[in-house]
């Protein structure tokens, strides 16, 4: 492996401070440079490893950029039809209730075609974790408008910017599911800075641990970037996301269990 290294005398096994989780397979992610999917995968993988869940995890991957989740995470995975992951996960969890079951979905998957499955799984309080990566655009298919695209935002199907009068406002799925009795823990995070990565990991750890309690659906939205779709560099996209997406999708817990 071709490496660029710092001070060689410090590079010793006993000095190891951070390495990528073994639950991440050695395949190169197909994601664009700077895409939040990769970071989110890594956080999930670390938690699966740290919590000893690799033998009992079953994930459900969507249609979208992260359809190939099963090439990157070394756990059992089912690839689901577009939007249907919560239904697929419902059956898995009901038939194998002691496994850790999660869905991993983008905004087209969860907030457009899958709105019904998302709401109903949450309404029934299925004991699963739903990970919702929201970058306000359809990445995989080339940058079309999503239900979560913010007003005025340009995309290949809203070239003049999202026009609220004809296209409606951006749909805030996380806020909607937080109102349902069936959800137990609902939070919105991001992964674009180290501090946010740490907060996301903390939130996701809670969400994963809560599944053992069987008290309802845990839902974590990751507001993320799409440098390719937004036509910006990764660093620019993170700045743009902070300035423009966060006002519509503020970070923090929307629903926490009554302790």
């Amino acid at each position, binding site marked *: *492996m*071709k*490496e*660029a*290294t*710092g*001070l*060689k*005398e*410090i*590079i*010793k096994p006993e*000095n*190891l*401070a*951070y*390495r*990528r*989780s073994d639950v*991440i397979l050695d395949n*190169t*992610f197909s*994601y*664009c*440079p*700077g*895409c*939040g*999917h*990769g*970071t989110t995968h*890594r956080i999930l993988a670390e938690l699966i490893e740290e919590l000893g869940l690799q033998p009992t995890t079953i994930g459900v991957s969507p249609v979208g950029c992260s359809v190939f989740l099963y090439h990157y995470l070394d756990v059992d995975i089912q690839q689901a039809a577009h939007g249907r992951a919560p239904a697929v996960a419902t059956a898995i969890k009901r038939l194998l209730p002691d496994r850790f079951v999660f869905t991993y979905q983008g905004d087209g998957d969860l907030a457009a075609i899958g709105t019904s499955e998302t709401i109903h799984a949450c309404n029934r309080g299925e004991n699963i974790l739903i990970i919702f990566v929201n970058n306000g655009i359809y990445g995989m298919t080339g940058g079309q408008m999503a239900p979560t695209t913010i007003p005025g935002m340009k995309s290949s199907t809203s070239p003049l910017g999202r026009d609220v009068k004809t296209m409606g406002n951006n749909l805030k799925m996380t806020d909607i599911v937080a109102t349902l009795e069936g959800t137990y823990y609902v939070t919105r995070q991001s*992964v*674009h*800075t*180290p501090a946010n*990565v*740490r907060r996301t990991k903390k939130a996701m750890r809670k969400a994963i641990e809560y599944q053992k309690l069987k008290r309802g659906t845990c839902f974590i939205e990751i507001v993320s970037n799409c*440098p390719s779709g937004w036509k910006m*560099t*990764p*660093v620019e996209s*993170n700045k743009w996301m902070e300035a423009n997406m966060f006002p519509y999708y503020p970070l923090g817990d929307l629903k926490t269990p009554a302790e």
Partner: protein
Amino acid sequence: MAKIRGSIVVDVEKCKGCEVCMVSCPTGTIAMAKEVNSKGYYNAYPANPELCIGCASCAIVCPDGVITVYKTKI
């Protein structure tokens, strides 16, 4: 007083040159290479390795997990 010193190892061929690690580094350790890797990306590398404090900010924010971090007290 003991100082914490770090050292990062970047998997050059897996790096996609997104620069998020560079802007996350608190000490200015990281810069982007002047030559591309075999995929055509200007990969990250520890340009000022003596500044590294092993905080792992770069590694934890890296979308592709290409950075391994070591640190020690000196």
